[in-house]
């Protein structure tokens, strides 16, 4: 186990952000240009998580598809499922994204549940479906696999997404361990900062975790039509997914790396 890794949120903590003070050659890029009308109209965003509760007020009726990964013998297959959330976490992500891009369509891919227990195979099958079949241009992943056995399959999927013009936004694991695909170069990797503001994000020029977003004491939607106040990198990622969706909605021709560059250009430490 790699216990000597830095805590991924550390670069974004108050008192540690001096090294983020930088300005790229981004003079002409500001958030109003980057976001356009900021509605996410015409976009689709996939949420690979514990499911999304379609009826939750925070989701705004924008959930258009709900699938789950199920075990079929040795394989995994993706099947349509009731729009429910077995934990609440996926609904929290959906609510954060919907608040940022209210007109975007949401797709839920449930990879957690009694039958798959966060299995790497289920996660990979769900991610592959998100990239190939969901129609999403942004995929939010609040989970990642720590298993070295899954390094190569997830690397392939991250490349597949990149080549298919799908942006993967991944929460870094809160525990300082290597996890995939969150630490691959082609994805947008996110940890939490400690500024109580959803509109603040930082770009960290020292990878692997390049973005810090709102993830401390976030008021989120949860299972059963409820809300909770929560902390973790997995609540920071959907904020960046939402802003990435605004950018892709306003500039449909952008590729994932161009979108990432604009996220960096519009980060608080680049302005």
């Amino acid at each position, binding site marked *: 186990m790699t216990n*000597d890794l830095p805590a991924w949120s550390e670069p974004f903590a108050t008192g540690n952000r001096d090294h983020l003070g930088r300005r790229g050659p981004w003079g002409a890029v500001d958030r109003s240009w980057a976001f356009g009308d900021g509605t996410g109209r015409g976009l689709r965003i996939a949420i690979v998580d514990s499911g999304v509760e379609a009826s939750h007020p925070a989701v705004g009726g924008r959930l258009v598809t709900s699938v789950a990964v199920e075990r079929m013998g040795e394989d995994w297959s993706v099947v349509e499922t009731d729009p429910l959330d077995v934990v609440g976490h996926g609904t929290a992500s959906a609510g954060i994204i919907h608040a940022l891009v209210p007109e975007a369509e949401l797709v839920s891919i449930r990879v957690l549940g009694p039958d798959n227990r966060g299995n790497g195979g289920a996660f990979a099958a769900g991610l592959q479906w998100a990239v190939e079949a969901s129609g999403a241009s942004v995929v939010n992943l609040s989970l990642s696999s720590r298993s070295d056995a899954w390094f190569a399959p997830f690397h392939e999927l991250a490349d597949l997404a990149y080549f298919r013009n799908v942006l993967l936004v991944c929460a870094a694991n809160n525990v300082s*361990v290597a996890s995939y695909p969150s630490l691959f170069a082609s994805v947008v990797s996110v940890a939490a900062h400690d500024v109580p503001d959803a509109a603040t994000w930082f770009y960290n020029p020292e990878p692997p975790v390049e973005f810090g977003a709102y993830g401390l004491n976030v008021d989120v939607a949860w299972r059963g039509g409820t809300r909770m106040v929560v902390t973790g990198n997995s609540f920071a990622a959907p904020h960046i997914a939402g802003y990435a969706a605004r950018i892709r909605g306003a500039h449909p021709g952008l590729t994932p790396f161009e979108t990432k560059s604009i996220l960096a250009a519009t980060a608080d430490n680049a302005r």
Partner: protein
Amino acid sequence: MSEAREAAILQALEAVAARAAAAGRLEPAGGESVLQSVADAAVAVFDAVAASIALHDPAMDRLVIRVAGGPAGAGAVGLAFPSSEGIAGYVFTTGQPLVVSDVSADPRFDRATAETTGYVPRSILAVPILAGDASIGVLEVLDGRGQAGFGLRDLDLASAFGRQAAAVVLAGRVERDVTELLRLTLARLAEDPDADGAALDAAVSAIAVGLDGDDGAGLWALADAVARARLAAPDQVSLVVEILDALARRGARPAARTFRR
């Protein structure tokens, strides 16, 4: 050896296995008391009302609270809950730690479970207990840090406690598993007293591999493979060592993936 003698030996082995299992339950000592001290230390460090360590029971696929510390912790020991539901279930299945700062906002938060312990927390910090790649349990800290609540750095700090708990669990594992291996082997023998050596060997092999559950660590699968290789070709042990050595070198290589600074 006479049949009576064989039966007597079998009976003696059964008696030993029964006592080993009973003693393990009566005095889980080593492991359990260190786990308890981890929970107690978490209570002290986080100024918490309670801290608990739940471990995964693969047979029932549930999380069972093994130890708890703090004024409100005692009632929780022995409680079991599904391994894929609720806050602890999410942390266990995803390996992603989580802080919930205000659970009272959610009336459906596992209130039934919380109330059976006599304590309903306001905030929860939950981190996975990891053995290599696999989650083997969850460490939870309830209502720590006073009014300020848990911060981001607390996730890291709690993870260190999780690593301690993992080390304790793994250290006690072989001992517990050997008892179980002996018990299950004897049960198999009792089912089929006429089984020959090859059949028994295959049975022991299957039982040993089954001890791994689905945590992905594969300790017993490895032990079984090594044991079988030694039995099959005693003069080839050095070859087995060489193969393992090569695998170890390969495993130690991916420095590019560890992001050390």
